[in-house]
Structure formats: C-alpha cells, structure tokens
C-alpha cells in the first residue's frame, strides 16, 4: 500500500479506548464500528483492508488528465466529450462510481467554469479520484457560489474582468469536469505526446480553481 501519511501519522491507528468524559475521536469511532461489523460477521478486516488499498492506490485524477490531453489534441474527440461525455467514458474502462452522468464544460477566453457541491461534496470520483480537503470545506462550499471571482483570486487564479464565471453546483447525481485551456507556454500541442500533455493537467484545473500547467 502506498505510504501517503509518512512515519508520524500513527496516532490514529494506535488509538484505543475512549477517554472518560471525552467524546470519541474519529479514529476511535471508525475502529469501534469496524469491530462491531467484524464481530457480527458482516465483514472481515481483510475486506476493509482491500477497500482502503483501492482508495489509496487506484483512485486519482489520471483518467481526467488523459481525457483533457486527448481533447487538446483532437478536435473531434473534444466535440464528442463536450456533447456526450458518457459515451467517451464508456469507452474507457472506468467504473461509474459517483459518476453516472458526466458533463464536461469548456474554459475559453470568454468563459471560466468552476465546480462545487454546496450540499455535501459530490465529486466525479471516476475521473478525478477523491476530493481534496478544501473542496469539502464549508468556506469553499459556502463562498464559491456567492463570490466566485473573489474566491478564485484568493486561491491564486485571477479571472479577467469580462470573462464570465460559471459556477456549477452539483446538487444532483450529475458530475462536472472542467476542460481547461492549454497553458500559454505549451507551444505546438502536436509536438507533445499525450502523456506529456496529461502531465500538465492538474486536478485543480479540472475543478476550475487553477489553470492547467501549474502542477
């Protein structure tokens, strides 16, 4: 399993027993519920381990980055992506977990798109993996719909005056992916391989809070 936590992050797994008078920590709640499910025979620790490994090792923004790179290179592919992203996804071997219906929205000099879920934290898992903490934070969820230009500027993305900002609140089961513009300094796109271009497509650009090329 990938070690993404480093050596210092053992507090949670070492946590056992609740301190009297204190509410249990999230780690303790997790452990207690897992124990209950295992003791009753509904699930095994190995099954939970496998799920955790799947989250850590298999999910990520790789699929999204490749889709965007391909769209930069191939106008017909891009057109299909913008009109029927589900068909494009169906050709790739990605599950539909949390992405039953995908809509891709294109950034242009005239339009900047940005995605949020104000009610919980819906996110296109199958193309972007799992969401970063800031995406789930009340500050992002509350403010990006009300003052998107100010919030994007705070996050380091100045959207030109006159460029329309379109916020997409994924309040149902539709999921959104932003197709960012290629970076200005990328040169001739067709001199690059799809893998090289995919390297330029960061997850944050596909949420709409950063330009491509900044990862």
């Amino acid at each position: 399993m990938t070690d993404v936590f480093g050596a210092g992050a053992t507090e949670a797994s070492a946590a056992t027993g609740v301190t009297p008078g204190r509410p249990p920590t999230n780690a303790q709640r997790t452990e207690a519920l897992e124990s209950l499910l295992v003791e009753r025979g509904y699930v095994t620790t190995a099954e939970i381990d496998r799920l955790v490994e799947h989250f850590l090792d298999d999910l990520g923004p790789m699929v999204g980055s490749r889709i965007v790179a391909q769209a930069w290179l191939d106008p017909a592919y891009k057109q299909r992506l913008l009109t029927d992203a589900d068909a494009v996804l169906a050709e790739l071997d990605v599950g539909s977990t949390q992405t039953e219906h995908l809509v891709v929205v294109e950034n242009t000099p005239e339009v900047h798109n940005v995605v949020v879920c104000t009610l919980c934290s819906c996110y296109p898992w199958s193309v972007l993996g799992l969401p970063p903490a800031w995406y789930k934070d009340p500050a992002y969820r509350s403010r990006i719909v009300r003052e998107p230009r100010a919030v994007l500027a705070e996050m380091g993305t100045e959207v030109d005056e006159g460029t329309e900002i379109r916020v997409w609140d994924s309040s149902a089961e539709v999921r959104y992916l932003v197709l960012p513009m290629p970076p200005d300094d990328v040169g001739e796109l067709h001199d690059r391989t799809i893998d090289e271009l995919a390297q330029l497509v960061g997850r944050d650009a596909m949420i709409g809070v950063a330009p491509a090329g900044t990862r």
Partner: protein
Amino acid sequence: MDGIHDLGGRQGFGRVPYEPDQEPWHETWEPRAMAVTLAATRVAGTNVDQMRYAIERIPPAEYLTAGYYGRWIRAARTLLEESEVLEGGELPAAQPTGALRAVDRPPRFSTGEMVRVRDLHTAGHTRLPGYCRGRVGRVVLVHPGFVFPDTNSQRAGERPQHVYAVRFEAATLWGEGAESDAAVHVDLFEDYLEAA
C-alpha cells in the same frame, strides 16, 4: 431540511484553506472510515440518499467540526442503529444501484425556458439548495432521469424524474452587491420547478 449542510451563500467562513495539488488523505483513519462506512451502508441496506440524510441530521456544531469522513462514520453508525440488523434482524435486501433511471414521459421543461424554483420547505432530505428557492432561472441542460432523493431518502419510492441544469444570474441570487459576469448553475429535479 434547512440544515447546516445547506451551505451555499452562507457568510463568515473566511478563506478557503487551499493548498495546490493537495493529497486527498491526511490521516490513516480517513480511508478506513470511508471503507467501514461503505460496508456499514451495505449491511444496513441503505441507499445514498438515506446516507446523505443521516449526515444532515448530525447536530449543526458537530457537523462543522467532525470533518468530512468524521461525518461519514457518524452517519454510518446512525444507519446501522436504525436498521434492524443490530437487533439480530435479517440482512436487508440490497437496493437497486445507481440513480439513473429511464423516464418514459418527456421532460416538462426544455432548454432556454425560464423556470421558478418552488417555495418548498421540505422537512426531510432534499437536494434543493436554499439559496435558489423562489428564484427564476433559465434551463440550460436537460439531464436524464434520476431517482428523486426527497422520497428515496425516506424509502417512499424512487419517483424517477428529469433533472435540469438551471442558470441563475448572480444578481438574481445575491442582489445588488453581486459580482458581475457571474452565474450559478444548479441541478434541480422536475418536482422542484414550475414555469416562470
């Protein structure tokens, strides 16, 4: 319900704690909480709308401080306790997966049409963000049919229906002080809408 989870447009939360290219996980219990929660909802035989409603019922102060996966693990416990499983009841049958459903009637609204969000104050679970209630917007996308969360969360039927991406101009939502050249699109179920 008009709960703390309905965060769109609320003020006072300060700066977004943004770090570029942040990893999705921060502590070892987080992916474990996610895995245990998914297992628990399978055992309890609940659907995603029941899960979201369980999250929304976390007391407001706790909702804000528990963190994302902290909310998950609390909701998982609630769902398990509300099922009959822990009292030795039979494992419930799994519910249909996914939320996409074929809807045989044509969409009531079409692209370009102006619609008003009904003044609904649902006591239970709903996917109607409070900030667009009563507002008028334009349909920009007609999505396929989906299970209706308001009833599915109560196990009162799937009632599948079309969903629409409705565009609200910023000034419609936030008044005179709104940012210029901005619009918010909200995905709204047909039952939330009426012709404007």
